[in-house]
C-alpha cells in the first residue's frame, strides 16, 4: 500500500446473488435442492473499480441512481466484503450511511447518545466526556431526557448528526446526509464537516448535490452502472458529469 494513500481500492467487483423467488424458506430450499437448482440472478453492482484516497483529502463519489455508490460505501466501511479485488484501509473507519438507525424510541435522548456512540465505536468514557458537547451541538438541552419517540424528525436528525460528528474518526464516510435540519443547522453541520476533514486522515462523501461535493472534496470518482467513468480533480470531473449526465437526460 502506497504510504500517501489511506484507502486503496484495487480491481473491486461486487456481485449480489439474488434468488429470483423472493421467499426463501427451509421447505423451498430442501425441495429446490432435490428437484432443480434455485434460479439465481447475478447483479453486478461494481465491476473492476480501482482508485485511491490520499491522506488528508476530501474525496467525493458521484453518479446517477444505481451506479454503485452505496455499495462502494458498504465496502469502504467494511460492512461487506467484495466478490473479487481488495479494499485496503489504513485507519479506523466510521461510516454514517443512514442517520439515526440505531435509535431506540423508548430510550431517552441521553441513553441513545450512549447507545449510538458505542455503535459508532466510541468508548463509554469518551461519550461521558463529550455528551454535553453533543447535546449543545444538537440544540436539545431541554428534551434530552425525553424518549426519542417523542422527537420530531428534525430533532432526531440533529441528534444523530451530533453524535456522529463527535466520533472524530480517522476516516469518515458519509452517504447523503447534508440535508439535516433547518438552514442554520445545515450551515453549522457543513462547517463541522470541513473541520473534520482537516482533523481526520480522509473524508469520503457520496452525494447528489454537486454543491456539497464542490465544497468538501478535492478529488472525485464518477461511477456509472458499477463501472468507473472518471477519476480526478473535483472541478474537472464534476463539470464533465454535469455536462454529460444532464445532457443524457435532456436527450431522453
Amino acid at each position, binding site marked *: 500500500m502506497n504510504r500517501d494513500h489511506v484507502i486503496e481500492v484495487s480491481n473491486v467487483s461486487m456481485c449480489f446473488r439474488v434468488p429470483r423467488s423472493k421467499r*426463501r424458506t427451509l421447505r423451498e430450499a430442501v425441495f429446490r435442492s432435490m428437484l432443480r437448482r434455485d434460479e439465481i440472478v447475478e447483479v453486478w453492482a461494481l465491476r473492476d473499480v480501482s482508485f485511491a484516497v490520499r491522506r488528508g483529502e476530501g474525496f467525493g463519489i458521484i453518479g446517477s441512481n444505481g451506479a454503485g455508490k452505496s455499495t462502494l460505501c458498504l465496502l469502504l466501511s467494511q460492512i461487506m466484503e467484495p466478490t473479487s479485488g481488495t479494499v485496503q484501509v489504513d485507519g479506523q473507519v466510521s461510516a454514517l450511511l443512514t442517520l439515526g*438507525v*440505531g435509535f431506540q424510541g423508548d430510550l431517552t435522548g441521553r441513553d441513545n447518545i450512549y447507545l449510538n456512540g458505542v455503535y*459508532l465505536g466510541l468508548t*463509554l468514557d469518551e461519550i461521558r466526556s463529550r455528551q454535553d458537547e453533543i447535546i449543545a451541538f444538537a440544540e436539545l438541552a431541554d428534551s434530552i431526557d425525553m424518549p426519542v419517540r417523542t422527537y420530531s424528525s428534525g430533532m432526531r436528525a440533529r441528534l444523530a448528526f451530533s453524535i456522529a460528528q463527535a466520533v472524530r474518526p480517522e476516516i469518515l464516510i458519509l452517504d447523503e446526509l447534508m440535508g439535516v435540519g433547518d438552514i442554520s443547522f445545515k450551515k453549522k453541520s457543513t462547517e463541522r464537516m470541513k473541520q473534520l476533514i482537516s482533523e481526520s486522515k480522509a473524508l469520503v462523501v457520496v452525494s447528489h448535490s454537486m454543491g456539497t461535493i464542490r465544497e468538501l472534496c478535492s478529488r472525485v470518482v464518477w461511477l456509472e452502472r458499477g463501472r468507473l467513468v472518471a477519476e480526478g480533480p473535483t472541478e474537472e470531473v464534476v463539470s464533465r458529469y454535469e455536462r454529460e449526465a444532464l445532457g443524457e437526460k435532456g436527450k431522453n
Partner: protein
Amino acid sequence: MPEVAGQLDSNPGAWERMRTMQSTLANLWQRRHLLRMLVSSNLKRQNKNTVLGYLWWLLDPMLMTAVYYVLVAVLFKRHDKDSPYVFFLMVGLLSWKAFSDSLAQSVLVFKGQAPLVRSIGFPKVVLPLSIVLSNGIYFMIALLVAFGLGLAYGPSWGTWPSLYYLLLPIPIIIQLVMAAGFSLIVCTLGVFFHDTANILNHILRMWFFLTPVLYPLTRVPTKLLPVFRLNPFSEILPIYRDIIIHGRMPLLSDILYSAAAALVVGVFGYLFFRRYEGRLVQRL
C-alpha cells in the same frame, strides 16, 4: 521440515481463517463497550414500557412451576420425595427459560435490526451475545428470588446456607456459553431461512420435555439414558439442584460433561457464524 511447509502452502485458507478469527475476537474485545451498552439498553427498554417490567420475565417460569406442581405432585403424585419438588421445578424452569428465550429471541435479531446492520460496521456477534447476556442477568436475579422463597419455605430447604453456593458461577457460565453457541447458530439460520423461527419454536417445546426439568435423570429408563445424555442441556440442571437445593458438591462428571458440551457448542456456533457472517448482510 519441507513436508509441513508444503502442506501449509497448499492450504493458505486455513491461515487466513485463523488470522481473521483472531482479529474478530480482538474486535469483540475492542467493542466490549458496545456489548455492555446493548445489554443495559435491552434491560432498560424491556423494563420501562411495562408496568410489571421485570416481573413479566419472572411470571412465566413461576406460573409454570405452579402448574407442573399441581399436575405432577398433586394430581399424579409421581414426584420424588427427597427434595422439595417446588424448588426442584423452579430451578429447572428458570434455567430453561433463560436458555430457550435466548435462542427464541436470537432467531430474528438480524431481521429486526436490518437497517442498523446494513449501515454501521460493527462485529455482528454482539447482537446475539447481548440477548444471551440479558437473559443471563434476568436468570441470576430470578435465582435470588428463588433463594428468597426458599428462605421463607423453611428448614426442609437442604442445608442453608452452604459454602457450595460459591460454585454457582460454574453452571451459570456453562449455560451461557451453551446458549451463546446455539444462539449464534439459530440467528445465522434465521437470516437465510425465513421459517427458522417457526421450526425452532417446535424444537424448543420438544427439547423442553426431553430435558430433565420436570423429572430427575434417575427416572429415565437405563436403556434410554444414553439418548438422554446426548442432550447437552441435561447435565446442567443436576449441578444447579445439587448446589441450590441440597447444598452439596455437584458431581464432577456432570460438570466436566456439560462444560465439554458447552465448549463444543460454543466453538462450533462461533465458527458457523463466522463462516456465514460475510454473506449475512447481503441476505437481509
